[in-house]
């Protein structure tokens, strides 16, 4: 029973906190360039506004366009159950491991890409094409980085890895972890669609990838697509902070443990969001055909990390 409560809390946390993390990113970006920026709860208001609006739908769209936002949202949220968020009490070994997480993102991406092609618009096709290119190159880097960490702890389940890592904290300074983190950070940037891989604030055809796929959405469906994107980014940040900085993860439901876990988790997420915002500010978006070079750098880091983990142990 305790496990079921933990699972429900995790789902609510992911769905509820992800717009806040997105708002924080925007706020940090603005402050760093000297603007006041939107309030950090603005994404909630945006979602609320979009849910109240009617939608305009293309005459050429089929049921895939209509159904894709629900599938994307549900699949991304299901992946969230498999990653450690604030507690490591529910590894859910039987449900899935890191490969399942990666392929659930792939499942959501398949439908998003099809929805982009569905409206017969050139923007949608372009977004789908570019998204499939970036995702094809980033997935090996993500999986190899996660495998390298998993091999060291003898498990591929992310929550179990975080639990093992929280027992022996000095491991996170080993070369394998540092290299894996370097590879994973680039994966985080690429998969959440941030500068320098994709610009989330633009609708220019030169620069948009994810935005191009959701260009024709409006109203409730657009709200769900945006929310799904926030959730994906939040999940990736959770993986980063809980695997590579596993301090304060609680395994039982004691009041002190829960409070400490909540506080530390909030602090870690704020730090990670700040880093992501800093990377966005300090870099320009790179040309589309320079993105594979960056992704190959990420793959190299992950690969080196894997080699180190296999041959040098922990």
């Amino acid at each position, binding site marked *: 029973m305790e496990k079921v409560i933990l699972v429900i809390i995790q789902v609510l946390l992911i769905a509820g906190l992800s717009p806040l993390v997105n708002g924080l990113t925007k706020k940090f970006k603005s402050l760093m360039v000297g603007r006041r920026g939107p309030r950090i709860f603005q994404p909630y208001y945006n979602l609320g506004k979009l849910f109240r609006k009617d939608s*305009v739908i*293309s005459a050429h769209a089929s049921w895939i366009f209509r159904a894709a936002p629900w599938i994307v949202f549900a699949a991304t949220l299901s992946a969230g159950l498999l990653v450690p968020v604030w507690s490591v009490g529910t590894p859910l070994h039987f449900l899935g491991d890191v*490969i399942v997480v990666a392929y659930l993102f792939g499942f959501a991406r*398949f439908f998003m890409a099809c929805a982009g092609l569905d409206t*017969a618009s050139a923007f949608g096709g372009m977004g789908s094409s570019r998204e*499939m290119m970036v995702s*094809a190159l980033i997935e090996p880097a993500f999986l190899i980085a996660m495998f390298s960490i998993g091999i060291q702890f003898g*498990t*591929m389940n992310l929550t179990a890895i975080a639990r093992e890592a929280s027992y022996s904290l000095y491991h996170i300074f080993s070369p394998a972890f540092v290299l894996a983190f370097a590879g994973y950070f680039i994966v985080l940037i690429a998969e959440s669609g941030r500068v320098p891989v994709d610009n989330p604030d633009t609708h220019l055809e030169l620069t948009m990838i994810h935005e191009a796929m959701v260009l024709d959405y409006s109203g409730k469906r657009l709200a769900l697509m945006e929310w799904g994107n926030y959730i994906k980014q939040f999940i990736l940040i959770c993986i980063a902070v809980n695997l590579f900085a596993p301090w304060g993860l609680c395994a039982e439901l004691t009041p002190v443990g829960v409070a400490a876990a909540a506080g530390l988790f909030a602090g870690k997420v704020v730090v990670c969001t700040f880093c992501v915002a800093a990377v966005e500010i300090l870099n320009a978006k790179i040309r589309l055909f320079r993105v594979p070079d960056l992704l190959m750098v990420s793959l190299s880091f992950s690969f080196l990390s894997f080699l180190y983990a296999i041959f040098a142990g922990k």
Partner: protein
Amino acid sequence: MYTIRLYLDEVKTKMNVDGSGLFVLSSVLFLTGCLAALLAYRSGRLSNLCAMVCALAGTGVAAVVAASVLAVGDAVSLQLPACLPLGGFTFRIDALSAFFILAIAVLAIPVSVYSIGYNREYFDKPQFPLAGALYNLFLLSMIMVVSANDLLTFLIGWELMSIVSYLLVVFERDRKESVNAGLLYIIMTHIGTAFIIVLFLLMASRADSVSFDLFRMIKTMGLPPGLRNALFACVLVGFGTKAGIIPLHIWLPQAHPAAPSNVSALMSGVMVKTAIYGMVRVLYDFLGATSNGWGAIVLACGVLSAILGVMYALQDHDLKRLLAFSSIENIGIILMGVGVSLIFAAHGAAPLAAVALIAGLCHVMNHAVFKGLLFMATGSVMFGTHSKNMEKLGGLIKNMPQTAFFSLIGSLAISALPPFNGFVGEWLTFQSLLAGFGSVGIFIKILFIVCTALLALTGSLAAACFVKAFGITFLGLPRSGHAEHAVESPLAMRAGMGILAALCLLLGVMPAIIMKPLSGVAAALCGVDVYEKLCGWGWLSVAPLDIRFSGASPAWILALIGIFAAVIFLLIRLRFGRIKDVVSATWDCGIPSVTPRMEYTATAFSQPLKIVFKAIYRPVKNIEVLSHETQPYFEKISKYEHTVQPIFERYLYRPIARFVISNSIKIINLQAGSIHMYLAYIFVMLIGLLLFVR
């Protein structure tokens, strides 16, 4: 599963029929189908119906035999009276054969249902009775190959399979590409058969017999390393040609598209798998997996085929050729599983070897199911639009909704996305690569790491490829008149596709259905039954030996996605009301309206990846511009062509072909035309044989 076993035992005792009797019955049914199709040559419908009903019956009976062998555990043997010099016809269906027969049946039953509707296209051609007749013979020959128990039966079945499939490839004999494709196919498959004959003759000379029962003793005899490696090379080249390993694959992308779609489904789905059967049978059962190097070579060939196969599939805009290249990719993944299994078996880690073998064979069954589905969907598209060129299709989801839905299921399954069946095979392959780092040497460790990375890359490229195939063909606006006036295919075709689509979901959600028979196969070949560790954990989960290491449950994932989608739908509906849609035109930037020419094309969709991987593709860009005569700066027609170079044909096969032809021309000088020269040759050869070969 236990209840199914009890039920089958009951049926067997009630029917009181021996497995071998049923096997003979199934062969008789196939031959009846063949004859009936030929005899009913006056009426296309009758011929087709007879042929397909007999095929269904024959396949069903064979499936019953296979299922009973897998459930009960003892092999079924059959010996026909010896009538040929090198041995009579002996058949033996053990666990491995039964599994492959089951895979053939699982694909052949829906394809036969599909063919009842599909073969209508050929009723007006003079050769239509052959469609049904050759189809039955094809199924018979494949079942013969996987159940053969001696050299001659296997070779006869293999040759029959090759020749019948050649005749089916050149079925549409008015099309030049079909005839050329058939010629290339028959040449390549006979090169492979030559190596297989050499292999079996060497083994027969070693075992002093032609029966496979005695071939099994070879692994207990010591073989000199030179002979072992020669045998392995023969296995790799011989069976590899039929399987379509790179670089022996050049016939596959030409032959599979040229055949009728139902035959392509069978060729891609099960004919290439008979080669995998041959490899597993020889390498495990006859020679014994004792060499590390072999496993590494098989793994390397597998990963090379996988990555190159998917890369070439990405750049194709012919639907059937794309599927053929994708078959090469999946054969690569299967070989990866088999190679990893051989490596572990050589190191003595039997449970790990069993898991890896199960991963490879699981992918055999899964690939048969979803590739068959995709080929049938392509056939349905061709039936409705008379085109298989993606650049001329589009928007088919409006006129062909069921075909589109089944094609979506097939595309999701082949991209290895949960909760469909492709995911389980690929996931297990990953797990078998990851689980064994402790037991292997340094070089193999590095190989495993590289292969894991490349397998991940293959998976993501396959998803990109099938987003393109599905999206460009079915979504958006129709790009030609054919696509605009598409018609949905008849009920029989849709029924066949529906069966396979349901199987894709069922096998994905309940992997235990496949894992049980596969554990039996692995127990027979590797010596240890891992079913409890794989699936004993939870009814719907699968885990590689240790649930603490990793686990996955596609059923739960499907349930979660469904629950979350339903919950959010209800919450939004209750709080914000129904979605109100205003239907309007797609955003067109102010230009009067969106035309099909503005859509993304298939070439455009995969172009970013073509540029990223240009070292492999070596694309050639060709732009021709035709201007007005008096106004040179105004273009009338411009033609843009961006092609991928056929590397293997140009740099590997053409030099070999040139070498063979130039040497043949020199050897022609021996045929001087004078009878005196020929008599002299015979005399010299006779003296030589008498002196040197006693």
